């Protein structure tokens, strides 16, 4: 089971965990991204997320499918936010269930690492004295 969601509404972490529960699983691994209050010493006021929605969804689906091909997983959930997020809010939740923890840990890390490289979603950091699209320039 693969469940991909891109939404401008707050993510429900408990719902993501419940969605991957199954009696066949021996463990669940969860990654929760949170909005940090500073980058390189500059205070972050908020983040703004923008997505190329149809492609972002298809790229997240690809990553989930790659992870189920590579590891023996039961269920995979990837939920990502768009819009304005304040410090402490949750832009992304990834939950993976598997019979054994090794596969769940490895797949969860693979999914977040790959998402950050390939999924067309962008975040702008808003500081007290300026703003910057993350990773845009060298």
């Amino acid at each position, binding site marked *: 089971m693969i469940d991909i969601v891109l939404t401008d509404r707050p993510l429900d972490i408990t719902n993501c965990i419940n969605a991957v529960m199954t009696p066949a699983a021996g463990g669940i691994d969860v990654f929760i991204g949170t909005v940090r209050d500073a980058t390189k010493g500059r205070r972050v006021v908020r983040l703004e997320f923008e997505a190329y929605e*149809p492609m972002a969804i298809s790229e997240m689906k690809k990553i989930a499918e790659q992870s189920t091909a590579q590891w023996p997983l039961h269920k995979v959930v990837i939920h990502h936010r768009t819009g304005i997020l304040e410090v402490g809010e949750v832009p992304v939740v990834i939950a993976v269930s598997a019979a054994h923890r090794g596969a769940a840990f490895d797949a969860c890390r693979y999914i977040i690492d790959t998402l950050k490289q*390939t999924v*067309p979603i962008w*975040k*702008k950091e808003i500081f007290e004295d300026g703003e910057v699209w993350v*990773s*845009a*320039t060298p």
Partner: protein
Amino acid sequence: MVVKILAFGVAKEIFNTSQLSVDMGGKSAIGDLKQTLELQYPRLASLSSYMVAVNNEYAGNEVVLVGNEEIAIIPPVSGG
């Protein structure tokens, strides 16, 4: 050939719009599109990198356009 492109993130700010038409002259490959855009918008070339997506898939410079595709400029992604 004239193609319509979508722009996101910092690319939207470089073009000052989220949708624009680009006249590629007699050319039709993604590499030509990038060259045309970089001449008109030099800031594009100063990004860490950027990709072009055709019909929601990343496309290499060699991909040739027919003109009715959905084309998007994808600056460095930063989700998560």
